[in-house]
Protein backbone atom coordinates (compact mmCIF):
# COMPACT_ATOMS: atom_id res chain seq x y z
CA UNK A 1 0.00 0.00 0.00
CA UNK A 2 1.42 3.33 -0.98
CA UNK A 3 1.57 6.01 1.66
CA UNK A 4 1.58 9.76 1.26
CA UNK A 5 3.51 12.28 3.26
CA UNK A 6 1.37 14.08 5.79
CA UNK A 7 2.28 17.54 4.40
CA UNK A 8 1.48 16.47 0.85
CA UNK A 9 -1.79 15.09 2.09
CA UNK A 10 -2.80 18.31 3.88
CA UNK A 11 -1.72 20.36 0.89
CA UNK A 12 -3.79 18.10 -1.33
CA UNK A 13 -6.81 18.69 0.88
CA UNK A 14 -6.19 22.46 0.79
CA UNK A 15 -5.85 22.40 -2.99
CA UNK A 16 -8.94 20.29 -3.47
CA UNK A 17 -11.10 22.38 -1.17
CA UNK A 18 -9.84 25.62 -2.74
CA UNK A 19 -10.75 24.38 -6.21
CA UNK A 20 -14.12 23.17 -4.94
CA UNK A 21 -14.79 26.57 -3.40
CA UNK A 22 -13.75 28.22 -6.64
CA UNK A 23 -15.98 25.99 -8.75
CA UNK A 24 -18.98 26.56 -6.53
CA UNK A 25 -18.32 30.22 -5.80
CA UNK A 26 -17.45 31.40 -9.33
CA UNK A 27 -20.94 30.95 -10.89
CA UNK A 28 -22.61 32.29 -7.76
CA UNK A 29 -20.28 35.26 -7.84
CA UNK A 30 -20.82 35.68 -11.57
CA UNK A 31 -24.59 35.63 -11.36
CA UNK A 32 -24.67 37.89 -8.34
CA UNK A 33 -22.44 40.40 -10.12
CA UNK A 34 -24.53 40.15 -13.25
CA UNK A 35 -27.68 40.65 -11.28
CA UNK A 36 -26.20 43.67 -9.57
CA UNK A 37 -25.06 45.15 -12.85
CA UNK A 38 -28.41 44.49 -14.44
CA UNK A 39 -30.21 46.20 -11.62
CA UNK A 40 -27.81 49.04 -12.07
CA UNK A 41 -28.53 49.14 -15.83
CA UNK A 42 -32.27 49.00 -15.20
CA UNK A 43 -32.03 51.85 -12.71
CA UNK A 44 -30.04 53.88 -15.20
CA UNK A 45 -32.63 53.24 -17.90
CA UNK A 46 -35.35 54.15 -15.49
CA UNK A 47 -33.49 57.35 -14.70
CA UNK A 48 -33.15 58.15 -18.42
CA UNK A 49 -36.90 57.66 -18.81
CA UNK A 50 -37.70 59.78 -15.79
CA UNK A 51 -35.38 62.58 -16.95
CA UNK A 52 -36.86 62.34 -20.41
CA UNK A 53 -40.39 62.51 -19.10
CA UNK A 54 -39.56 65.34 -16.71
CA UNK A 55 -37.27 67.53 -18.82
CA UNK A 56 -37.88 66.66 -22.49
CA UNK A 57 -41.42 65.38 -22.84
CA UNK A 58 -43.25 68.52 -21.73
CA UNK A 59 -41.44 70.59 -24.38
CA UNK A 60 -41.28 68.01 -27.13
CA UNK A 61 -43.35 68.53 -30.25
CA UNK A 62 -44.10 65.97 -32.95
CA UNK A 63 -41.97 67.96 -35.35
CA UNK A 64 -38.98 67.57 -33.00
CA UNK A 65 -39.08 63.76 -33.01
CA UNK A 66 -37.12 63.37 -36.19
CA UNK A 67 -34.28 65.60 -35.02
CA UNK A 68 -34.40 64.05 -31.53
CA UNK A 69 -33.95 60.60 -33.01
CA UNK A 70 -31.24 61.84 -35.31
CA UNK A 71 -28.95 62.91 -32.44
CA UNK A 72 -29.83 60.26 -29.91
CA UNK A 73 -28.58 56.82 -30.63
CA UNK A 74 -29.64 55.25 -27.36
CA UNK A 75 -32.94 56.99 -26.85
CA UNK A 76 -35.54 56.97 -29.53
CA UNK A 77 -39.13 57.96 -30.02
CA UNK A 78 -41.19 55.88 -32.41
CA UNK A 79 -44.81 56.01 -33.41
CA UNK A 80 -46.85 53.43 -31.64
CA UNK A 81 -50.25 52.06 -32.34
CA UNK A 82 -51.10 50.14 -29.27
CA UNK A 83 -51.00 51.25 -25.73
CA UNK A 84 -48.59 49.80 -23.18
CA UNK A 85 -49.80 50.07 -19.66
CA UNK A 86 -46.48 49.54 -17.94
CA UNK A 87 -42.90 49.89 -19.00
CA UNK A 88 -41.19 46.83 -20.45
CA UNK A 89 -37.58 46.04 -20.06
CA UNK A 90 -35.73 43.31 -21.97
CA UNK A 91 -32.49 42.15 -23.64
CA UNK A 92 -31.91 42.60 -27.28
CA UNK A 93 -28.99 42.31 -29.65
CA UNK A 94 -28.33 45.18 -31.97
CA UNK A 95 -26.03 45.15 -34.91
CA UNK A 96 -23.12 47.45 -34.30
CA UNK A 97 -22.61 49.01 -37.71
CA UNK A 98 -19.03 50.00 -36.92
CA UNK A 99 -17.71 46.60 -35.93
CA UNK A 100 -20.44 44.70 -37.78
CA UNK A 101 -21.18 42.61 -34.71
CA UNK A 102 -24.21 41.90 -32.66
CA UNK A 103 -23.84 43.51 -29.27
CA UNK A 104 -26.07 42.83 -26.26
CA UNK A 105 -28.21 45.66 -24.99
CA UNK A 106 -30.67 46.20 -22.18
CA UNK A 107 -33.74 47.95 -23.53
CA UNK A 108 -36.56 49.87 -21.83
CA UNK A 109 -39.75 50.73 -23.59
CA UNK A 110 -42.32 53.08 -22.27
CA UNK A 111 -45.38 54.49 -23.92
CA UNK A 112 -45.62 58.21 -24.05
CA UNK A 113 -48.02 60.70 -25.50
CA UNK A 114 -46.85 63.65 -27.51
CA UNK A 115 -49.50 66.11 -28.55
CA UNK A 116 -52.16 63.53 -27.92
CA UNK A 117 -50.57 61.00 -30.18
CA UNK A 118 -49.13 57.75 -28.63
CA UNK A 119 -45.46 57.12 -29.05
CA UNK A 120 -43.10 54.51 -27.82
CA UNK A 121 -40.04 55.70 -25.94
CA UNK A 122 -37.12 53.29 -26.20
CA UNK A 123 -33.95 53.66 -24.16
CA UNK A 124 -31.12 51.20 -24.40
CA UNK A 125 -27.80 50.61 -22.67
CA UNK A 126 -24.92 48.55 -23.95
CA UNK A 127 -23.88 45.55 -21.92
CA UNK A 128 -20.42 45.31 -23.47
CA UNK A 129 -18.88 47.13 -20.52
CA UNK A 130 -20.62 44.68 -18.29
CA UNK A 131 -18.87 41.73 -19.97
CA UNK A 132 -15.53 43.45 -19.70
CA UNK A 133 -16.12 43.98 -16.04
CA UNK A 134 -17.03 40.35 -15.60
CA UNK A 135 -13.84 39.34 -17.30
CA UNK A 136 -11.79 41.57 -15.06
CA UNK A 137 -13.54 40.27 -11.98
CA UNK A 138 -12.99 36.66 -13.01
CA UNK A 139 -9.34 37.45 -13.65
CA UNK A 140 -8.89 39.01 -10.22
CA UNK A 141 -10.72 36.06 -8.75
CA UNK A 142 -8.36 33.52 -10.34
CA UNK A 143 -5.32 35.56 -9.34
CA UNK A 144 -6.55 35.64 -5.76
CA UNK A 145 -7.09 31.88 -5.68
CA UNK A 146 -3.67 31.28 -7.18
CA UNK A 147 -2.10 33.60 -4.64
CA UNK A 148 -3.92 31.82 -1.85
CA UNK A 149 -2.67 28.44 -3.05
CA UNK A 150 0.88 29.65 -3.33
CA UNK A 151 0.73 30.98 0.21
CA UNK A 152 -0.76 27.69 1.40
CA UNK A 153 2.01 25.81 -0.34
CA UNK A 154 4.65 27.97 1.26
CA UNK A 155 3.04 27.52 4.66
CA UNK A 156 2.85 23.76 4.39
CA UNK A 157 6.35 23.53 2.97
CA UNK A 158 8.12 25.84 5.35
CA UNK A 159 6.06 26.63 8.37
CA UNK A 160 4.37 23.26 8.80
CA UNK A 161 7.69 21.58 8.35
CA UNK A 162 8.96 23.60 11.28
CA UNK A 163 5.89 22.83 13.34
CA UNK A 164 6.21 19.13 12.62
CA UNK A 165 9.94 19.08 13.39
CA UNK A 166 9.49 17.71 16.95
CA UNK A 167 7.50 14.88 15.47
CA UNK A 168 10.30 14.12 13.02
CA UNK A 169 12.78 14.18 15.91
CA UNK A 170 10.66 11.73 17.89
CA UNK A 171 10.33 9.48 14.88
CA UNK A 172 14.09 9.47 14.33
CA UNK A 173 14.65 8.48 17.95
CA UNK A 174 12.09 5.69 17.85
CA UNK A 175 13.64 4.36 14.66
CA UNK A 176 17.03 3.91 16.32
CA UNK A 177 15.54 2.38 19.45
CA UNK A 178 16.53 -1.24 19.93
CA UNK A 179 15.06 -3.15 22.82
CA UNK A 180 17.93 -5.59 22.99
CA UNK A 181 20.46 -2.76 23.21
CA UNK A 182 18.82 -1.65 26.42
CA UNK A 183 19.49 2.05 25.82
CA UNK A 184 16.84 4.36 27.23
CA UNK A 185 15.54 7.06 24.93
CA UNK A 186 14.76 10.52 26.22
CA UNK A 187 12.79 13.20 24.41
CA UNK A 188 13.31 16.93 24.63
CA UNK A 189 10.44 19.03 25.87
CA UNK A 190 8.62 20.78 23.04
CA UNK A 191 6.07 23.59 23.15
CA UNK A 192 3.30 21.70 21.40
CA UNK A 193 0.96 19.88 23.72
CA UNK A 194 0.15 16.94 21.44
CA UNK A 195 3.79 16.22 20.71
CA UNK A 196 4.63 16.37 24.39
CA UNK A 197 1.90 13.88 25.10
CA UNK A 198 3.16 11.65 22.33
CA UNK A 199 6.69 11.83 23.70
CA UNK A 200 5.59 11.12 27.24
CA UNK A 201 3.54 8.11 26.13
CA UNK A 202 6.39 6.78 24.03
CA UNK A 203 8.80 7.29 26.89
CA UNK A 204 6.50 5.35 29.19
CA UNK A 205 6.03 2.60 26.64
CA UNK A 206 9.72 2.13 25.90
CA UNK A 207 10.67 2.30 29.57
CA UNK A 208 8.13 -0.38 30.37
CA UNK A 209 9.35 -2.54 27.53
CA UNK A 210 12.93 -2.12 28.62
CA UNK A 211 12.11 -3.05 32.16
CA UNK A 212 10.10 -6.12 31.13
CA UNK A 213 12.86 -7.13 28.76
CA UNK A 214 15.58 -6.79 31.34
CA UNK A 215 13.49 -8.63 33.91
CA UNK A 216 13.03 -11.45 31.46
CA UNK A 217 16.73 -11.49 30.69
CA UNK A 218 17.59 -11.46 34.36
CA UNK A 219 15.12 -14.27 34.97
CA UNK A 220 16.70 -16.50 32.33
CA UNK A 221 20.14 -15.72 33.64
CA UNK A 222 19.21 -16.31 37.28
CA UNK A 223 17.33 -19.48 36.48
CA UNK A 224 20.34 -20.81 34.59
CA UNK A 225 22.63 -19.87 37.46
CA UNK A 226 20.39 -21.55 39.98
CA UNK A 227 20.36 -24.70 37.87
CA UNK A 228 24.14 -24.95 37.71
CA UNK A 229 24.60 -26.31 41.24
CA UNK A 230 21.85 -28.96 41.14
CA UNK A 231 23.20 -30.04 37.77
CA UNK A 232 26.68 -30.27 39.25
CA UNK A 233 25.36 -32.36 42.13
CA UNK A 234 23.52 -34.68 39.75
CA UNK A 235 26.57 -35.11 37.58
CA UNK A 236 28.75 -35.89 40.56
CA UNK A 237 26.24 -38.32 42.08
CA UNK A 238 26.11 -40.17 38.82
CA UNK A 239 29.89 -40.25 38.69
CA UNK A 240 30.08 -41.64 42.22
CA UNK A 241 27.53 -44.29 41.35
CA UNK A 242 29.74 -45.33 38.44
CA UNK A 243 32.56 -46.03 40.88
CA UNK A 244 30.47 -48.73 42.55
CA UNK A 245 32.25 -52.04 42.01
CA UNK A 246 29.12 -54.18 42.24
CA UNK A 247 27.34 -52.49 39.41
CA UNK A 248 25.61 -54.81 36.91
CA UNK A 249 25.78 -54.20 33.18
CA UNK A 250 22.07 -53.45 33.20
CA UNK A 251 22.58 -50.77 35.80
CA UNK A 252 25.57 -49.42 33.88
CA UNK A 253 23.38 -49.06 30.78
CA UNK A 254 20.80 -47.17 32.82
CA UNK A 255 23.46 -44.90 34.19
CA UNK A 256 24.78 -43.96 30.77
CA UNK A 257 21.18 -43.45 29.64
CA UNK A 258 20.86 -40.88 32.42
CA UNK A 259 24.16 -39.34 31.43
CA UNK A 260 22.91 -38.31 27.98
CA UNK A 261 19.89 -36.18 28.91
CA UNK A 262 21.90 -34.79 31.80
CA UNK A 263 24.61 -33.72 29.37
CA UNK A 264 21.96 -32.09 27.21
CA UNK A 265 20.52 -30.19 30.14
CA UNK A 266 23.97 -29.01 31.08
CA UNK A 267 24.52 -27.88 27.51
CA UNK A 268 21.21 -26.00 27.28
CA UNK A 269 21.86 -24.29 30.57
CA UNK A 270 25.37 -23.34 29.57
CA UNK A 271 24.16 -21.92 26.25
CA UNK A 272 21.37 -19.93 27.89
CA UNK A 273 23.95 -18.40 30.19
CA UNK A 274 26.17 -17.67 27.22
CA UNK A 275 23.31 -15.97 25.36
CA UNK A 276 22.51 -13.89 28.43
CA UNK A 277 26.13 -12.85 28.65
CA UNK A 278 26.33 -11.83 25.01
CA UNK A 279 23.12 -9.85 25.41
CA UNK A 280 24.53 -8.21 28.51
CA UNK A 281 27.46 -6.97 26.45
CA UNK A 282 29.96 -9.09 28.28
CA UNK A 283 32.94 -10.23 26.22
CA UNK A 284 33.63 -6.56 25.62
CA UNK A 285 37.37 -6.75 25.07
CA UNK A 286 38.22 -6.89 21.38
CA UNK A 287 41.43 -7.68 19.58
CA UNK A 288 42.62 -7.84 16.01
CA UNK A 289 42.28 -11.47 14.99
CA UNK A 290 43.55 -13.43 12.04
CA UNK A 291 40.42 -15.21 10.82
CA UNK A 292 42.42 -17.88 9.08
CA UNK A 293 44.21 -18.80 12.32
CA UNK A 294 41.08 -18.86 14.46
CA UNK A 295 39.31 -21.10 11.94
CA UNK A 296 42.22 -23.54 11.87
CA UNK A 297 42.47 -23.61 15.67
CA UNK A 298 38.76 -24.30 16.03
CA UNK A 299 38.88 -26.95 13.34
CA UNK A 300 41.78 -28.62 15.14
CA UNK A 301 39.68 -29.08 18.28
CA UNK A 302 36.91 -30.62 16.21
CA UNK A 303 39.10 -32.97 14.15
CA UNK A 304 38.45 -36.01 16.33
CA UNK A 305 34.75 -35.41 16.41
CA UNK A 306 34.49 -34.86 12.66
CA UNK A 307 36.64 -37.91 11.88
CA UNK A 308 34.50 -40.08 14.14
CA UNK A 309 31.50 -39.21 11.98
CA UNK A 310 33.41 -40.08 8.79
CA UNK A 311 32.92 -36.61 7.42
CA UNK A 312 35.55 -35.03 5.17
CA UNK A 313 36.52 -31.37 5.34
CA UNK A 314 37.72 -29.23 2.43
CA UNK A 315 38.95 -25.78 3.19
CA UNK A 316 39.97 -22.87 1.06
CA UNK A 317 41.04 -20.02 3.30
CA UNK A 318 42.60 -16.75 2.20
CA UNK A 319 45.58 -15.77 4.31
CA UNK A 320 45.83 -12.74 6.55
CA UNK A 321 42.25 -11.62 6.83
CA UNK A 322 41.99 -9.64 10.04
CA UNK A 323 38.89 -8.58 11.92
CA UNK A 324 38.54 -6.83 15.23
CA UNK A 325 36.28 -8.56 17.74
CA UNK A 326 36.24 -10.64 20.88
CA UNK A 327 38.22 -13.85 20.48
CA UNK A 328 35.92 -16.03 22.58
CA UNK A 329 32.88 -14.91 20.59
CA UNK A 330 34.57 -15.49 17.24
CA UNK A 331 35.61 -18.97 18.35
CA UNK A 332 32.09 -19.75 19.52
CA UNK A 333 30.66 -18.49 16.21
CA UNK A 334 32.96 -20.62 14.07
CA UNK A 335 32.66 -23.58 16.39
CA UNK A 336 28.86 -23.51 16.38
CA UNK A 337 28.74 -23.21 12.59
CA UNK A 338 31.09 -26.16 12.19
CA UNK A 339 29.25 -28.29 14.74
CA UNK A 340 26.01 -27.41 13.01
CA UNK A 341 27.56 -28.53 9.72
CA UNK A 342 28.31 -31.85 11.39
CA UNK A 343 24.99 -32.35 13.08
CA UNK A 344 22.94 -31.61 9.94
CA UNK A 345 25.10 -33.78 7.76
CA UNK A 346 24.75 -37.15 6.12
CA UNK A 347 26.68 -40.37 6.55
CA UNK A 348 30.15 -39.92 5.04
CA UNK A 349 29.27 -36.37 4.13
CA UNK A 350 31.43 -33.39 3.39
CA UNK A 351 32.02 -29.93 4.82
CA UNK A 352 33.42 -27.03 2.78
CA UNK A 353 34.90 -24.01 4.50
CA UNK A 354 35.89 -21.05 2.39
CA UNK A 355 37.16 -17.65 3.40
CA UNK A 356 37.47 -14.99 0.73
CA UNK A 357 37.84 -11.39 1.72
CA UNK A 358 35.63 -10.83 4.72
CA UNK A 359 33.18 -13.55 3.76
CA UNK A 360 33.13 -16.93 5.45
CA UNK A 361 31.10 -19.69 3.83
CA UNK A 362 30.46 -22.98 5.59
CA UNK A 363 28.55 -25.48 3.49
CA UNK A 364 27.81 -29.13 4.02
CA UNK A 365 25.90 -32.01 2.51
CA UNK A 366 22.45 -32.60 3.91
CA UNK A 367 19.07 -34.07 3.18
CA UNK A 368 16.42 -31.52 4.05
CA UNK A 369 16.47 -27.76 4.24
CA UNK A 370 16.28 -26.05 7.60
CA UNK A 371 13.36 -23.72 8.23
CA UNK A 372 14.66 -20.29 7.22
CA UNK A 373 12.14 -18.46 9.36
CA UNK A 374 12.90 -20.29 12.56
CA UNK A 375 16.52 -21.15 11.96
CA UNK A 376 18.05 -18.58 14.29
CA UNK A 377 15.32 -18.64 16.92
CA UNK A 378 15.84 -20.42 20.20
CA UNK A 379 14.84 -24.06 20.48
CA UNK A 380 13.22 -24.17 17.07
CA UNK A 381 15.62 -26.02 14.76
CA UNK A 382 13.82 -29.23 14.00
CA UNK A 383 16.06 -32.19 13.72
CA UNK A 384 16.08 -35.85 14.56
CA UNK A 385 19.15 -35.07 16.63
CA UNK A 386 17.98 -34.80 20.17
CA UNK A 387 21.35 -34.10 21.67
CA UNK A 388 21.90 -30.59 20.40
CA UNK A 389 20.77 -27.77 22.60
CA UNK A 390 18.74 -25.91 19.98
CA UNK A 391 20.68 -22.79 20.85
CA UNK A 392 23.81 -23.05 18.72
CA UNK A 393 22.51 -21.03 15.79
CA UNK A 394 20.68 -18.58 18.07
CA UNK A 395 24.07 -17.87 19.61
CA UNK A 396 25.61 -17.47 16.14
CA UNK A 397 22.90 -14.95 15.27
CA UNK A 398 23.33 -13.09 18.53
CA UNK A 399 27.07 -12.77 17.93
CA UNK A 400 26.45 -11.53 14.37
CA UNK A 401 23.94 -8.98 15.71
CA UNK A 402 26.45 -7.82 18.27
CA UNK A 403 29.01 -6.95 15.59
CA UNK A 404 26.53 -6.14 12.81
CA UNK A 405 27.79 -9.02 10.71
CA UNK A 406 25.47 -10.37 8.05
CA UNK A 407 24.49 -14.03 8.09
CA UNK A 408 22.56 -15.84 5.37
CA UNK A 409 21.36 -19.40 4.98
CA UNK A 410 20.63 -21.30 1.79
CA UNK A 411 19.75 -24.84 0.84
CA UNK A 412 20.37 -25.87 -2.74
CA UNK A 413 21.15 -29.20 -4.40
CA UNK A 414 21.21 -30.91 -1.01
CA UNK A 415 23.84 -28.50 0.30
CA UNK A 416 23.36 -26.36 3.39
CA UNK A 417 25.21 -23.07 3.11
CA UNK A 418 25.85 -20.52 5.81
CA UNK A 419 27.46 -17.27 4.73
CA UNK A 420 28.83 -14.76 7.22
CA UNK A 421 29.98 -11.36 6.01
CA UNK A 422 32.20 -9.72 8.61
Amino acid at each position, binding site marked *: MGSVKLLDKTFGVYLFSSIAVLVVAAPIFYFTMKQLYMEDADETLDLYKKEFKYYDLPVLKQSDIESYNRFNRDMRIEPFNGYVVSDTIYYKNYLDTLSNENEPYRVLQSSIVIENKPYLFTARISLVENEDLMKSIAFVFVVLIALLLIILLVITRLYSKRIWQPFQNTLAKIKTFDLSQGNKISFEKVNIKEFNELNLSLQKLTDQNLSVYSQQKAFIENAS*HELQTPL*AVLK*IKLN*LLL*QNKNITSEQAALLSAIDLPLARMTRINKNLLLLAKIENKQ*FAEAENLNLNEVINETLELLT*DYIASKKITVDKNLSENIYISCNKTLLEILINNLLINANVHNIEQGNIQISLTGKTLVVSNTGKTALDKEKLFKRFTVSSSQTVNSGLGLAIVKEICNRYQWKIEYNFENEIHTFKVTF
Partner: protein
Amino acid sequence: MKILIIEDEMELAQDVAKYLAGQNYVCEIAKTFIQASEKIGIYQYDCILLDLMLPDGSGLALLELLKKENKQDGVIIISAKNSLEDKVKGLEIGADDYLAKPFHLSELSARILSIIRRKQFNSSNIIQQNEITIDLLGKTVKVNEIEISLTKKELDLLLFFIGNKNRVISKSALAEHLSGDIADMFDNHDFVYAHVKNLKKKLTEANYGNYIKTIYGTGYKWEA
Protein backbone atom coordinates in the same frame (compact mmCIF):
# COMPACT_ATOMS: atom_id res chain seq x y z
CA MET B 1 47.60 -35.03 51.20
CA LYS B 2 45.13 -32.57 52.56
CA ILE B 3 42.45 -30.80 50.63
CA LEU B 4 40.04 -28.13 51.85
CA ILE B 5 36.71 -27.90 50.10
CA ILE B 6 35.10 -24.48 50.56
CA GLU B 7 31.54 -24.91 49.33
CA ASP B 8 28.18 -24.00 50.82
CA GLU B 9 26.36 -26.75 48.96
CA MET B 10 26.97 -29.61 51.41
CA GLU B 11 25.72 -32.28 49.07
CA LEU B 12 28.28 -31.29 46.46
CA ALA B 13 31.10 -30.87 48.97
CA GLN B 14 30.53 -34.31 50.48
CA ASP B 15 30.43 -36.00 47.10
CA VAL B 16 33.65 -34.35 46.04
CA ALA B 17 35.19 -35.41 49.37
CA LYS B 18 33.98 -38.97 48.85
CA TYR B 19 35.49 -39.18 45.38
CA LEU B 20 38.79 -37.65 46.43
CA ALA B 21 38.99 -39.88 49.53
CA GLY B 22 39.24 -42.79 47.13
CA GLN B 23 42.34 -41.11 45.67
CA ASN B 24 43.95 -41.09 49.13
CA TYR B 25 43.32 -37.44 49.83
CA VAL B 26 42.19 -36.24 53.24
CA CYS B 27 39.36 -33.80 52.75
CA GLU B 28 37.92 -31.16 55.01
CA ILE B 29 34.86 -29.12 54.29
CA ALA B 30 34.17 -25.47 55.12
CA LYS B 31 30.63 -24.27 54.54
CA THR B 32 31.01 -20.58 55.20
CA PHE B 33 33.46 -17.75 54.74
CA ILE B 34 34.15 -17.67 58.50
CA GLN B 35 34.77 -21.41 58.77
CA ALA B 36 37.01 -21.26 55.75
CA SER B 37 39.06 -18.32 56.99
CA GLU B 38 39.57 -20.05 60.37
CA LYS B 39 40.77 -23.26 58.75
CA ILE B 40 43.03 -21.42 56.35
CA GLY B 41 44.50 -19.50 59.27
CA ILE B 42 45.31 -22.61 61.32
CA TYR B 43 46.16 -25.34 58.85
CA GLN B 44 48.10 -25.81 55.70
CA TYR B 45 46.51 -27.57 52.74
CA ASP B 46 47.95 -29.02 49.58
CA CYS B 47 45.02 -27.82 47.59
CA ILE B 48 41.98 -25.67 48.26
CA LEU B 49 38.79 -25.94 46.20
CA LEU B 50 37.13 -22.58 46.40
CA ASP B 51 33.54 -21.71 45.57
CA LEU B 52 33.30 -18.00 44.81
CA MET B 53 29.76 -17.56 46.08
CA LEU B 54 29.54 -18.17 49.81
CA PRO B 55 26.57 -17.18 51.98
CA ASP B 56 28.60 -14.80 54.14
CA GLY B 57 31.30 -13.50 51.83
CA SER B 58 33.09 -13.67 48.53
CA GLY B 59 35.49 -16.42 47.63
CA LEU B 60 37.73 -13.84 46.00
CA ALA B 61 38.20 -12.19 49.43
CA LEU B 62 39.39 -15.54 50.81
CA LEU B 63 41.83 -15.76 47.95
CA GLU B 64 43.17 -12.32 48.81
CA LEU B 65 43.48 -13.40 52.46
CA LEU B 66 45.54 -16.43 51.43
CA LYS B 67 47.90 -14.37 49.34
CA LYS B 68 48.26 -11.71 52.06
CA GLU B 69 49.36 -14.37 54.54
CA ASN B 70 51.69 -15.69 51.88
CA LYS B 71 50.23 -19.19 52.01
CA GLN B 72 51.50 -21.66 49.46
CA ASP B 73 48.30 -23.70 49.19
CA GLY B 74 47.23 -24.44 45.64
CA VAL B 75 43.82 -23.03 44.83
CA ILE B 76 41.25 -24.17 42.28
CA ILE B 77 38.26 -21.88 41.90
CA ILE B 78 35.00 -23.73 41.42
CA SER B 79 32.27 -21.43 40.27
CA ALA B 80 28.74 -21.66 39.01
CA LYS B 81 29.19 -18.31 37.34
CA ASN B 82 31.64 -19.31 34.61
CA SER B 83 32.26 -15.68 33.88
CA LEU B 84 35.41 -14.62 32.17
CA GLU B 85 35.90 -11.66 34.51
CA ASP B 86 35.80 -13.84 37.62
CA LYS B 87 38.17 -16.26 36.01
CA VAL B 88 40.66 -13.58 35.01
CA LYS B 89 40.37 -11.85 38.39
CA GLY B 90 40.74 -15.09 40.33
CA LEU B 91 43.80 -16.15 38.38
CA GLU B 92 45.28 -12.67 38.77
CA ILE B 93 44.89 -12.74 42.55
CA GLY B 94 46.68 -16.05 42.61
CA ALA B 95 44.36 -18.98 42.01
CA ASP B 96 46.06 -21.81 40.15
CA ASP B 97 43.10 -23.01 38.14
CA TYR B 98 39.44 -22.36 37.41
CA LEU B 99 36.73 -24.95 36.93
CA ALA B 100 33.17 -24.11 36.04
CA LYS B 101 30.23 -26.00 37.51
CA PRO B 102 29.05 -28.51 36.57
CA PHE B 103 32.31 -30.41 36.18
CA HIS B 104 33.40 -34.02 35.99
CA LEU B 105 34.94 -35.36 39.19
CA SER B 106 37.67 -36.97 37.13
CA GLU B 107 38.53 -33.58 35.60
CA LEU B 108 38.75 -32.07 39.08
CA SER B 109 40.91 -34.91 40.29
CA ALA B 110 43.31 -34.57 37.37
CA ARG B 111 43.64 -30.84 37.96
CA ILE B 112 44.23 -31.29 41.69
CA LEU B 113 47.00 -33.75 40.95
CA SER B 114 48.61 -31.40 38.47
CA ILE B 115 48.58 -28.54 40.99
CA ILE B 116 49.92 -30.62 43.86
CA ARG B 117 52.66 -31.89 41.57
CA ARG B 118 53.65 -28.35 40.65
CA LYS B 119 53.65 -27.17 44.26
CA GLN B 120 55.15 -30.20 46.00
CA PHE B 121 57.93 -31.31 43.78
CA ASN B 122 58.94 -27.76 43.23
CA SER B 123 58.17 -28.02 39.57
CA SER B 124 59.99 -31.30 39.21
CA ASN B 125 58.53 -32.72 36.10
CA ILE B 126 59.03 -36.44 36.41
CA ILE B 127 56.07 -38.69 37.17
CA GLN B 128 56.64 -42.29 38.09
CA GLN B 129 53.76 -44.74 37.80
CA ASN B 130 54.34 -48.49 37.86
CA GLU B 131 56.79 -49.17 35.03
CA ILE B 132 56.18 -45.82 33.40
CA THR B 133 58.18 -42.59 33.66
CA ILE B 134 56.78 -39.37 32.28
CA ASP B 135 58.93 -36.28 31.78
CA LEU B 136 56.45 -33.45 31.63
CA LEU B 137 58.94 -30.85 30.48
CA GLY B 138 60.50 -32.95 27.73
CA LYS B 139 57.10 -34.47 26.95
CA THR B 140 58.66 -37.90 26.79
CA VAL B 141 57.29 -41.17 28.10
CA LYS B 142 59.45 -44.15 28.98
CA VAL B 143 58.29 -47.65 29.77
CA ASN B 144 61.00 -49.73 31.43
CA GLU B 145 63.54 -47.15 30.24
CA ILE B 146 62.42 -47.54 26.63
CA GLU B 147 61.01 -44.39 25.11
CA ILE B 148 57.65 -44.62 23.36
CA SER B 149 56.23 -41.90 21.19
CA LEU B 150 52.79 -40.63 22.11
CA THR B 151 50.78 -37.90 20.44
CA LYS B 152 49.91 -34.82 22.48
CA LYS B 153 46.40 -36.11 23.04
CA GLU B 154 47.56 -39.57 24.07
CA LEU B 155 49.93 -38.06 26.62
CA ASP B 156 47.10 -35.93 27.87
CA LEU B 157 44.93 -39.01 28.25
CA LEU B 158 47.67 -40.90 30.07
CA LEU B 159 48.07 -38.12 32.63
CA PHE B 160 44.32 -37.95 33.06
CA PHE B 161 44.16 -41.69 33.80
CA ILE B 162 47.02 -41.47 36.30
CA GLY B 163 45.23 -38.59 37.99
CA ASN B 164 42.16 -40.78 38.43
CA LYS B 165 43.59 -44.12 39.48
CA ASN B 166 41.07 -46.83 40.26
CA ARG B 167 38.17 -44.63 39.29
CA VAL B 168 35.69 -45.13 36.50
CA ILE B 169 36.05 -42.25 34.06
CA SER B 170 33.09 -41.56 31.82
CA LYS B 171 33.59 -41.07 28.11
CA SER B 172 32.08 -37.59 28.31
CA ALA B 173 34.65 -36.59 30.95
CA LEU B 174 37.44 -37.75 28.65
CA ALA B 175 35.92 -35.96 25.66
CA GLU B 176 35.68 -32.73 27.60
CA HIS B 177 39.21 -33.09 28.80
CA LEU B 178 40.49 -33.62 25.27
CA SER B 179 38.41 -31.03 23.44
CA GLY B 180 37.78 -28.51 26.14
CA ASP B 181 34.46 -26.85 26.75
CA ILE B 182 33.15 -27.41 23.26
CA ALA B 183 33.03 -31.19 23.77
CA ASP B 184 29.63 -31.00 25.36
CA MET B 185 28.28 -29.56 22.13
CA PHE B 186 29.09 -32.82 20.32
CA ASP B 187 26.33 -35.28 19.69
CA ASN B 188 28.60 -38.25 20.36
CA HIS B 189 31.90 -38.95 22.04
CA ASP B 190 33.06 -41.86 19.91
CA PHE B 191 36.37 -40.22 19.07
CA VAL B 192 37.51 -40.89 22.65
CA TYR B 193 37.46 -44.56 21.87
CA ALA B 194 40.02 -44.19 19.07
CA HIS B 195 42.47 -42.30 21.25
CA VAL B 196 42.18 -44.75 24.15
CA LYS B 197 42.62 -47.66 21.77
CA ASN B 198 45.80 -46.13 20.31
CA LEU B 199 47.21 -45.37 23.76
CA LYS B 200 46.50 -48.91 24.98
CA LYS B 201 48.11 -50.36 21.86
CA LYS B 202 51.31 -48.33 22.23
CA LEU B 203 51.63 -49.16 25.93
CA THR B 204 50.99 -52.85 25.38
CA GLU B 205 53.59 -52.96 22.61
CA ALA B 206 56.11 -51.60 25.12
CA ASN B 207 55.21 -54.44 27.49
CA TYR B 208 53.35 -52.23 29.87
CA GLY B 209 50.79 -53.97 32.06
CA ASN B 210 47.21 -53.79 30.93
CA TYR B 211 46.05 -51.19 33.42
CA ILE B 212 43.45 -49.48 31.31
CA LYS B 213 40.20 -51.38 31.62
CA THR B 214 37.12 -50.72 29.55
CA ILE B 215 34.00 -50.60 31.70
CA TYR B 216 31.15 -51.65 29.49
CA GLY B 217 28.75 -48.89 28.59
CA THR B 218 30.20 -46.28 30.88
CA GLY B 219 33.85 -45.53 30.34
CA TYR B 220 37.35 -46.53 31.39
CA LYS B 221 39.32 -47.26 34.51
CA TRP B 222 43.04 -47.21 35.28
CA GLU B 223 43.67 -50.08 37.68
CA ALA B 224 46.95 -49.78 39.49
